[in-house]
């Protein structure tokens, strides 16, 4: 009995402790032949993992699939909606084990370099999937490239803008949205004192810190010279501005857990006048209490500028094809169709998501949605992010640092030093 229990205890302990160790598989599979001569003759089944919002956005993509199947009746598309937050890990696990991975994935722009470096994605040069590459906006298109090859093509692009409640700003005596960080602070303080609402709600998230860092001329990394610049004077100046917004009361004390949702809810309820957010939130915002019956109250402006420029991160999503797909020709055709200017314009018209092809903006479908034109100026300030395989690991240390600053646990300089130290552990051989 004595022995029995200690063995059971050890077993219980190790069951959790070792669950992290996976094995590796080596699926051997002949490379599929390059694109078939006649697209109409291609047949097969394509499984697509969509990571868009299942209720608001999913149906529009499903409509596109119906159109695709009408054009290529021999190809069957299986639509699977995978929640965005889970998709990256789920895909990696499936891709690596060689079973259960989709043929086509909607990948966030920051994932592509990582997936490509790990051998999970099929290069698209010379396939139908890379169609009219000159007709892509340069910044989103660069997200699909790794080591000189193209592994993904853009679906939509986005960036952060300053979203504001026009009525609240007017009450505070401001007809126009703030154009600089100094004006942002003043406007927010005016709203607080005159309009009976908070001025600005910050989302404590590393991605949402980037406009402040870019504005002062900083960046997380300098990829060309392999330098970590997150604690350099320019980036530190940007983070100081955020610190000042919080301590001065211009920004409401930010929530740290569920920060995004809390900021969005406060904005939609009219409890706060300004937030930073992207075009993906258009539908959500317009459904809010203060915008539902008065959509003109919803204002979109570029992020305010710092001493260097106005800059916000380039975001968006790409289509990528799994290297182990058994239906490569059909998958390439599917990507070609989904990434075409016509498809992007349809998505833009229905959802207000920004096309990644310049030609799509001129199509009537896209022009029918006035959100597209409103996001043109904010989009001009979009800054290219470092598309490196380690890109996905950069946010957690910065998030922890931002949380410490927002909670008042640590000053911005000390927090950024810690972030830089964490980056040194992630990026081997990079200098400070």
């Amino acid at each position, binding site marked *: *009995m*004595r022995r029995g*229990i*200690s063995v059971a*205890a*050890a077993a*219980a*302990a*190790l069951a*959790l*402790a*070792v*669950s*992290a*160790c*996976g094995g*590796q598989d*080596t*699926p051997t*599979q002949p*490379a*599929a032949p390059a694109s078939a001569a006649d697209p109409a003759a291609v047949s097969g089944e394509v499984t697509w993992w969509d990571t868009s919002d299942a209720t608001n956005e999913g149906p529009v993509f499903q409509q596109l699939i119906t159109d695709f199947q009408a054009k290529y009746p021999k190809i069957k598309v299986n639509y699977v909606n995978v929640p965005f937050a889970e998709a990256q*890990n789920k895909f*990696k696990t499936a*891709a*690596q084990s060689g079973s259960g991975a989709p043929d086509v994935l909607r990948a966030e722009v920051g994932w592509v370099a*990582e997936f490509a*470096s*790990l*051998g*999970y*994605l*099929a*290069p698209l040069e010379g396939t139908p999937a890379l169609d009219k590459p000159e007709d892509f906006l340069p910044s989103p298109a660069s997200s699909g490239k790794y080591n000189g090859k193209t592994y993904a093509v853009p679906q939509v692009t986005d960036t952060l803008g300053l979203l504001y409640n026009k009525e609240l700003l007017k009450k505070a005596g401001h007809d126009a949205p703030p154009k600089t960080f100094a004006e942002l602070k003043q406007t927010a303080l005016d709203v607080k004192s005159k309009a009976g609402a908070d001025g600005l709600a910050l989302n404590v998230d590393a991605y949402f810190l980037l406009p402040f860092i870019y504005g002062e001329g900083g960046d997380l990394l300098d990829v060309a010279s392999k330098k970590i610049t997150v604690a350099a004077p320019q980036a530190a100046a940007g983070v100081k501005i955020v610190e000042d917004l919080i301590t001065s009361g211009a920004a409401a004390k930010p*929530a*740290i*857990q*569920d920060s995004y949702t*809390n900021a969005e*809810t*406060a904005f939609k309820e009219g409890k706060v006048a300004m937030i930073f957010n992207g075009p993906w939130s258009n539908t959500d915002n317009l459904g809010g209490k203060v915008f539902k019956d008065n959509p003109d109250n919803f204002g979109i402006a570029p992020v305010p500028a710092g001493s260097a420029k106005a800059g916000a991160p380039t975001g968006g999503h790409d289509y990528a094809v*799994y*290297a*182990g*797909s058994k239906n*490569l020709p059909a998958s390439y055709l599917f990507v070609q169709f989904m990434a075409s200017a016509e498809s992007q314009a349809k998505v833009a018209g229905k959802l207000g998501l920004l096309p990644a092809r310049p030609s799509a903006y001129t199509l009537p479908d896209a022009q029918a949605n006035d959100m597209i034109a409103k996001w043109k100026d904010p989009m001009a300030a979009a800054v290219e992010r470092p598309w490196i*395989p*380690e890109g*996905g*690991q950069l946010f*957690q240390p910065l998030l*922890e*640092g931002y*949380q*410490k600053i*927002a*909670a008042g*646990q*640590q000053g911005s300089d000390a927090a950024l030093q810690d972030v830089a130290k964490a980056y040194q552990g*992630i990026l081997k051989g990079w200098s400070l």
Partner: protein
Amino acid sequence: MTTQVVDGTAAGTPARGGARRPRGEGRAGRFLARHWYAWAMCAPVVVVTLVLIGYPLVRGVYLSLTDATEANMGRTIGMNTIPSTYEFVGLANYTAIVTSAEFLSRLAWTITWTVVCVALHYGLGLGLAMLLNRPLRLRSLYRMLLVLPWAVPAFVSAFIWRYLLNGEFGVVNAMLRAAGLPGVQWLDDPLWAKASVIAVNVWLGVPFMMLALLGGLQAIPRELYEAAEVDGATPWQRFRHITLPGLRPVSSTVVLLGTIWTFNQFPVIFLVTRGGPGGSSEILVTYAYRQAFEGIRNYSGSAAWGVLILVLLVVMAVVYRRALRRQGEAW
């Protein structure tokens, strides 16, 4: 037992004396002959355990001695082939972890978290079990309600608590504000966040302790209490000298189990605070998870974390067992 007796007689029978095989072989042969049935019955369990626990464990220990990551383990996917380039690095992963500043602070918080949670689990569970271990109207209803937190999947409870404790829009703060009190930064302040995750875990874990201890209480013979009462023992003396010793076999097991579960209580921390704010509520397992699943997966580093956690728990279990044995507990 019976086999042994039969065997003994057979060996002692003079008629078989001449046919005896050499000593060593005879022992092994007799051992197999005597126990083959038991071995056959155990075999499926042994095989399954070896496959499900033994292999991953051995592989985990091996990986923890290499520098394997998702990027350097060889594989072929379609047209892409990645060569295997990971190497044996000895104990480098372990020294890196143990010498990092992160390790000691995470370990300290993990131990605090475990001790506080298990103490509250046991204390509250025992209190509730004592309350329910007496004739009471609607007793089975209370019992059912108290078990409810345990019946709900932990991740569901964790999400519900996360919404209840939301600083701006949460129910708890709404009630505080309605009562004229200022809201509390339940999940946004490092100290409150720690208190909140402990509270959630206590809420989740008390029902199990209560049920186990209630079973233990019911196994204590009534006569002991009656005799004590006749001898004039006070309620406290009865609790101290009958209830606690009577519960010891149950307590020692559930406390050990509770410690291991709490030490590795992943969902509560991961889903309620995500380890935040600023990593302050991160325990060892959630930290190890980040190592494994954030960005390019670090198999060797996370395996080293896993093995370290395992070693810590095994050491704890052995020390605990020794301490109990010294007190005369037979298990």
